[in-house]
């Protein structure tokens, strides 16, 4: 508490070793076996966000190689890398690097692998074969059905279940106590409900609520609302109230102040439409979602975000007028 530096609690309280992972007992047992045998096949970790897939992969590697494990691990993220060619180059380079003492392979962690196209996955499969003598892949995915069969059949499959309520609340309690944060028990349960078993989200909510003071059910809801820029809601309200020009000014401010892209803003709008802060007739929510989807698709096609969203606001202005 007296330290000058702080980090996000999701980083600070991440389990470093398989032993520290409290939930997912079956998975931990099987993984620990690989560590004991100092050998493993390619692995596929699947399951919803925030259930510990990436954490387990890193913990496994640390248990295998020790604290300086990162030199024997190549971390790739399919959503951040620019295409399979970049991945191929990095894998090639990494396969040539120094091998760890006593263990005949290095590990490549490929996160969000289900974001790869099936063509890219075919190329990935060839890579896995080509370098199988010196490397093992840990593929991480939310939706295993999006991983092509030839890859699935080459991997040991691990399904991560959504975390149980007790597990999440217990962990939140541990963190809160350790950080000297005051809290209501109900608040921790509320955090679990909102985060739907996603530990990363739960811890982020806890830390943000703690920044406001005592963690209460109210402060939890408040902070979840804050995490969506209020301005998006205000912009929608202004448009629905017929204030097109004001809404348009807000749109530009949001883009500049938060650095959000058109697609980011579309996502925020989508959340607001089905949130409870924005009051409107229920059938209107459906209409808006429909039109928003069209705008979203145009943005994906490469159309100009400023013009598309401005048109969306002009449409909302008319919609709001008809409703009133």
């Amino acid at each position, binding site marked *: 508490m007296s330290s000058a*530096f702080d980090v*996000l609690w999701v980083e600070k309280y991440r389990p470093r070793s398989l032993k520290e992972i409290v939930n997912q007992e079956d998975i931990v047992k099987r993984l620990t076996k690989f560590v004991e045998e100092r050998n493993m096949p390619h692995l596929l970790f699947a399951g919803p966000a925030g259930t510990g897939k990436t954490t387990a992969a890193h913990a496994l590697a640390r248990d295998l190689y020790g604290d300086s494990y990162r030199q024997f691990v190549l971390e790739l993220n399919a959503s951040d890398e620019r295409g399979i060619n970049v991945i191929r180059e990095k894998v090639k380079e990494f396969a040539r690097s120094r091998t760890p003492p006593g263990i005949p392979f290095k590990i490549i962690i490929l*996160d*969000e692998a289900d974001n790869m196209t099936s063509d890219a996955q075919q190329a990935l499969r060839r890579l896995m074969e080509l370098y199988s003598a010196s490397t093992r892949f840990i593929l991480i995915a939310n939706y295993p059905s999006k991983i092509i069969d030839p890859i699935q059949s080459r991997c040991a499959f691990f399904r991560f279940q959504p975390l149980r309520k007790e597990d999440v609340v217990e962990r939140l309690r541990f963190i809160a106590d350790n950080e000297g944060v005051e809290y209501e028990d109900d608040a921790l349960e509320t955090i679990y409900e909102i985060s739907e078993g996603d530990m990363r989200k739960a811890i982020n909510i806890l830390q943000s609520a703690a920044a406001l*003071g005592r963690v209460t059910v109210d402060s939890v809801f408040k902070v979840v609302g804050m995490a969506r820029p209020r301005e998006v809601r205000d912009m929608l309200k202004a448009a629905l109230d017929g204030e097109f020009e004001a809404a348009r000014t807000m749109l530009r401010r949001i883009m500049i102040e938060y650095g959000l892209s058109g697609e980011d803003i579309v996502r925020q709008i989508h959340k607001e439409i089905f949130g409870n802060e924005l009051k409107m007739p229920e059938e209107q929510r459906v209409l808006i979602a429909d039109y928003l989807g069209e705008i979203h698709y145009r943005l994906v096609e*490469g159309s100009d975000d400023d013009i598309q969203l401005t*048109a969306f606001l*002009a449409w909302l202005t008319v919609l709001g007028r008809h409703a009133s």
Partner: protein
Amino acid sequence: MTKRLPWVIKYRPKRVEEVVNQDKAKQALIPWIEAWASGRKPAKRAALLYGPPGVGKTSLVEAIAREYGFQLVELNASDYRRDVDIKRIVGSAARKRPLYGRSLIILLDEIDGIAPREDAGGLKALLEVIRDTENPIVMTANDPWKEQLRPLRDSVLLVEFKQLATGHIVRLLERICKAERLYCEKEALKYIAERSMGDVRAAVNDLEAVAEGYGKVTLSLAKVLVRGRDKSIDLWRTLNSIYYAKYAWQAKKAVTSSEEDYETLLAWLNDNTYKKYREPEDLYRAYDALARASLFLSRAKYKGHWSMLSYVFDLMGPGVAFARVKGQVARERFSYPERIKLMAQLRQVRETREALAGKLAERILASKATVKREVIPFLTAIFRNSRDPTMPARIALGYNMTREEVKLLAGARAEEILKAAERIRKARPEEERESGEEQAVKEARQVKPTGLDAFLGLGPRGGGGPSRGSRSSRSTRRGRRRGRS
């Protein structure tokens, strides 16, 4: 016989107070000049005055030079663009030490005339000259947001000049009419002022042209004589032809015969249609047409279906023209699209966000996309709403955040948090810092050594947003060293 001066020169503002409607610009520029005048060199050695043409950029510099006793050396940047020229001509003026008598202000006009590729060396040379200058360098530009001016933007004092309102220009024209004892109809002056679109120089030239030909200025004469003079007038015509079109072909012809490219035209329509149409339904139809035009444009551009361009024109012209079913066309002035400025600002924040996401992704073990979607929103909530600024300040230190990154997360609260971070950093001696960090950052530090200098923008990685003063003084030192060796 006295030489007859053109009115734009004759009636140029002589004193600072005569430059109208630019109080903000004066407030920024004058203290900077005063610093030079008193022998203290400000951290930024050059200033860039920007704004639409004819709003008083050059005039203000001249007036300041006169009032503060500087000698003005004017160089037209478009004449000296090769790096050798810049080094030779600008550089020698910049190095001149004011021994006795008056010191110099170096004025470089039209700096945005520098072309991105051909003159790249010139810009680099200019940056070097700025770094080493002994005298204030003042530059002017209409559009400072051009990509190639980016390095320049970072190392100069940016001073914005506002576009003038019609009223300001009318008053100035009236003053000239009085001084010249000229018969002027108020309506005519208003007409001239409106057509000038905020450009004083253009308005004065038009006034002089009418007066010279007829000895008086009436509305009917002004209407005959005053015509479009530059591309903004072409745009103005195109837009009017669209908004007032009676037939679809007229609106389409307005688009296809415009000299502007369709993207510029789209930007103008996007920024002016809501001023011209007032009925929400009209507006909706107009912006829907623009959005669809933009969609067809992206199909043409990114998918190579160039035959789609025709539909872009259809929707931009007739689509906007016949969106107006109910209302009248409002009598509003056209304005320059903010788009270019917007894009430059956007690029900057997006880059900051990308860099921050990368930094966090590595430590939190998630993709940048996930960090942007799920972590940055909560960090923003913490930075903007925490009860106590020390909590975000400690996180800022923990992740080595740059100034720009803190600003992105904290918005209006950035200064408060940066100060808190500075206090914490000062209060903690080296060894305590170590123990404080140990808990969780240890692992991360193996990957990326934590350097406080980076936070303050002094370290090698602090390029994202160091305090400007420290950076420019550092590069000055470096430049000097190189100069000697």
